[in-house]
């Protein structure tokens, strides 16, 4: 890889951000971090990252989704791949589909979900796939 891929991690859990940084830095990635949606958006405005890792539920239940939608609705940011971290994908698929539909519109504004707790091997594999554009 000629240049290091720029990955932005947005999560309010600093410990989790720290451990993800440790894992991802074993590869030639540049890691930037933000601890809430607003800060994350600022980082994106500063420089468009190659990948955003985004926590679904920060200060509010939908802060992650709000940011994802905001990005998807802007030409400039539309194509940034988003990996969404969640502790309730299973619940969403079980019961939440319609509950979240009003936020979602017709499609999920993210490329992939990753369920917490995060397995570092799976994290690396998923990140690689997304960066390759899969």
């Amino acid at each position: 890889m000629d240049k290091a891929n720029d990955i932005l991690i947005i999560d309010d859990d600093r410990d989790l951000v720290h451990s993800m940084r440790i894992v991802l830095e074993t590869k030639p990635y540049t890691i930037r971090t933000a601890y809430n949606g607003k800060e994350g958006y600022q980082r994106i405005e500063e420089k468009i990252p190659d990948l955003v890792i985004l926590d679904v539920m920060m200060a509010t239940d939908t802060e992650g989704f709000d940011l994802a939608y905001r990005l998807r609705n802007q030409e400039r940011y539309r194509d940034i791949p988003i990996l969404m971290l969640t502790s309730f994908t299973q619940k969403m698929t079980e019961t939440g589909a319609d509950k979240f539909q009003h936020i979602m519109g017709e499609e999920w504004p993210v490329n992939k979900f990753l369920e917490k707790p995060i397995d570092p091997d799976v994290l690396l594999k998923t990140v690689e796939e997304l960066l390759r554009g899969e």
Partner: protein
Amino acid sequence: MNLAKELVAQQIFFRRELSERVGWLVGVRWIAVVTALCSAWVLRLCHFDLPMTTVTGVIAVMTGYNILFAIIVRQLKRISQDRQVPFQICAHAQFISDLTALGALIYLTGGFYSPLTLFVLFPIILACILLDPIYAYIYAGTCVIGIGVLGYLQTTGIITPHSGLFAHGIFHSAHTTRENAMLFIVLATACLMTAYLVTTIKRSLRAKGHTLLLFCKELDAANTKLTALYDMVKQMAFCADYQELMDSATQNTARIMGVKACSIKLLDEQRQTLRFASNYGLSQNYLAKGDIDISKSPINQGILQGAFYTIGNIEAQDYFQYPENVRQEGFSSMICLPLKVEKRVLGVFCVYSQARFNFSDADVDFFALISELTALAMQNLKSELNKSWFLQRAAHQLRSPLNAVDSMLKVLRKAYAGPLNDQQSDMLAQCERRIEGLSLTIQDLLKLGIKRADTAPPELRQISLAPLLAQLSAVYQTQAKQKEVHLAISLESGLPAVLGEEKLLDDLYTNLLSNAIKYTPAGHEVRVTLSREDAQRLCLRITDTGIGIPQDQLSRLFTEFFRAENAKAHTDQGTGLGLTIAKEAMDRLRGTLLIESREGEGTRVTCYFPVAG
């Protein structure tokens, strides 16, 4: 239309009396025939002078026509139970035949002076009961005339009835015209007074019958309504969200009240507009008018202040913000009530009818009852939802740090933060397992809270308890040792399998055992025994010599989040959910959980498991 139906139904009800009695008359006549025949022979044996041949002839004729009537009545009953005319004709035919036969017998037993003349009262009484009063009077009048004519003809000597029987009888001495006239007046009065009295009494009885019938029908209607209301409340209790609940309420209310439409409008937070939250039978057009501005709707203002509105004739009132919509919908009367819990008004509940003045006071009262129950169901659902929201929130709060810890442990164990030796790696793997266990418990908690309504039975299979419990106990040996609590476990081997599910058994046992260790001070003992109780049950006992539970708090042990005072004082760790989970697990395992305790002495928990098969 309803009234006409009602009248017909009532008439049919009272007509039954005629159709039943017509058959009964035939039966009574058989008794009369037999009695007449016997009497004639007895008189004959007592040497009374009786024209036996003629009397027997009359009785034979009676027998003949009675057979005929028996056949006719049977046919009538088969063809037309509810048509009155054929039965009336049959009754008339019977009365006429009887009076004729009786006339003949009177003639043969002394004519005007025969005591049998009194028997004319019987047909008169029956006519009063079974026929319209006018016919009763006609029969009474005919009898009076008949007796009068007979008396006249007999006293003037134009006819000479057979007088052998009562030659010296009670009536025979009356010879003078004055006395004959007296006799006639007495008999005539008896006939007419009987007709009058019986007819009057019958009329009053029938009026009371009508009233009773009406009461019966009202009771029946009320019973039907209440049963429907009961079903409605039951249905509402199972609703999982507001919309479902309100839709069920409006639909059922319209059905129970027998009206065209029903709606629930809810107040917004600012309490300024009413929004159609649920409706049944209202057109899209009517709903399209949108929210109702309370300041422009005097009727809704009134209702929100607690008033009940019953409008009998909508055309005549000027109550509505959108009167033309109400007219288009074809509504003529309506009831609107506040939907409220205690003093808090949630919205407005209405029923609409196309008929004018469709609602009675009883309807309003009944609708108020429906409204009250609906509001209660809504309130109940709200607290259920709050509880479940709280549990979801709590579970998330618990799970977030766990997920972070778990993620970090994985990073460590997979050596992303530097190499580990085998022992470190094993310990980290053990940590992960424990964290996963805890995470699962939290998930269960969430399930316990949210899916309590889930009534699907667990899939139970045959499980051998002793090995499972031994495995589950391993962790607690370490914990007990750290606390210096002596943990003695004695699991009888070779016991039959029980019907169970591993997760549920885990929930049950680990909660009970960890409680026992937690609330037992150092130096004390926790004893676990598994044995056979009887042919059908295994018994698991967990006995400790710990702090025990105060008597007055025993009954609240299975309440969520409840912790006994001394438990709270003993340690601040504990959610108060452990026993709830254990109890519900036990319920799902179809076993029995008993807790006996004495404060300061210890606790004994007994679980009975049904043996498989």
